[in-house]
């Protein structure tokens, strides 16, 4: 068996065994995740929250759990939720399925408590337009209902009427939200990103352009801990943790071999 096959087999076992055994692990919320939770806690009841679903199937396993945990918190707090997608039309269907699943659990009604604005191309143009009048860019929701016919949009015109924007991004869309919504209109912005994108958001957290940040499966698991509802992320964390440990061991073992060779 070659070294590569041994590595692959060990990674497979490291992922599969903790998942099959159902090992649980408690995670401690980090400051950016706590800040995200507190930002939602601070919103007045029935405020409107806009969620950008900007992640595709490739990142679904780490993004869906944080999306579900956030929705759980938003609906628990009786906040209104509108979703839209600015990256790809194909990001939204998964987002709608998750939204409907959580909304059903809370007995929320379409048009009153939540709505789907659909996909709109032209990222920056759409973000800027939302700052003027939402009906200019979304005269109807994704199902073709005029926005004025949906009770949850009564009196909603622009960012002044949106309490919080959450962008769940696997790409650069959150940067556009910062540039064109936060910097220009002072929108309160929270992001959920993949684990590899987490480090690049820290400058915006420090400058307070982001009110909070969830990164990867760990961020989702931390949020699940805060809302006291362990879900997909909490179940996946032990597998991720074992793989992390395995990678550390691989690095140490590889360097031990390198050091031995160097001494010779």
């Amino acid at each position: 068996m070659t070294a590569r096959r041994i590595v692959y087999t060990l990674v497979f076992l490291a992922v599969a065994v903790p998942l099959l055994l159902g090992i649980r692990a408690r995670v401690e919320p980090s400051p950016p995740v706590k800040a995200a939770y507190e930002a939602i806690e601070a919103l007045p009841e029935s405020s409107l929250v806009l969620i950008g679903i900007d992640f595709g199937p490739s990142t679904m396993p780490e993004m869906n759990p944080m999306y579900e945990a956030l929705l759980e918190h938003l609906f628990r707090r009786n906040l209104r939720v509108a979703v839209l997608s600015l990256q790809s039309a194909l990001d939204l269907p998964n987002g709608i399925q998750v939204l409907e699943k959580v909304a059903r659990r809370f007995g929320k009604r379409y048009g009153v408590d939540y709505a789907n604005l659909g996909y709109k191309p032209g990222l920056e143009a759409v973000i800027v337009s939302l700052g003027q009048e939402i009906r200019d860019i979304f005269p109807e929701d994704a199902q073709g209902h005029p926005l004025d016919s949906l009770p949850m949009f009564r009196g909603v015109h622009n960012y002044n009427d949106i309490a919080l924007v959450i962008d769940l991004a696997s790409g650069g869309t959150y940067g556009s939200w910062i540039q064109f919504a936060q910097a220009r209109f002072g929108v309160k912005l929270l992001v959920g990103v993949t684990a590899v994108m987490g480090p690049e958001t820290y400058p915006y957290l420090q400058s307070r352009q982001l009110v909070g940040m969830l990164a990867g499966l760990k961020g989702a698991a931390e949020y699940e801990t805060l809302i006291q509802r362990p879900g997909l992320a909490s179940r996946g964390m032990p597998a991720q943790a074992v793989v992390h440990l395995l990678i550390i061991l691989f690095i140490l073992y590889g360097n031990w071999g390198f050091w031995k060779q160097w001494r010779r």
Partner: protein
Amino acid sequence: MKRTGPFVLSVVIGLWILVAFFVKPLRGAQQTLLLWYTIVGAFALVVGLINLIQSHLRNLQRGQNVPYSLILLFGFFGTLAVGIYAFFQGNAFDPYSPLMWVYGYVLAPLQSTMFSLLAFFLASAAFRAFRIRNMEALLLLLAAVIVMLGRIPWTEHTFAGITEWIMAIPNLAAQRGIQIGVALGAIGMALRILFGLERPYLR
């Protein structure tokens, strides 16, 4: 005229959008221009698709990478057919439409699988390539190991503090430096395009 027209148009529109960020009365027109940009972008997508299909048809003619090109063309036209059928059935993007079936049971598992493979490649790369050859590599290795330990539920109590410090201080400083550098580069390039020193749209 063939070259001057696009140049003048891009300079005027570029400057207009830039100035409108600071001059409120210009924002109405800026809004319209940004909507035009969206429409032009949609046409560019069509051009890109035509190019992609032509390229793979050429592959078939030349006998290069035939299986891959066949799969791409089959996937493209198959999804298109299902999409058109779903469109006439009602809302193609309805979560329960045939197009979304293709999305949920073909595209999503394929993309998730491709992304999952990264774990295997990453582990293999860590074993083979992450060598402490100098001081910088040692620092990188230490930071990586500490951050990973800080992300593991069983060790995070010990490493959470230092992990957060690494993320909030050295990482932040490096990220900000990179972002400022990228932004300056982007501003430089934008100015070159605005003043006609760079004309990628004429190529």
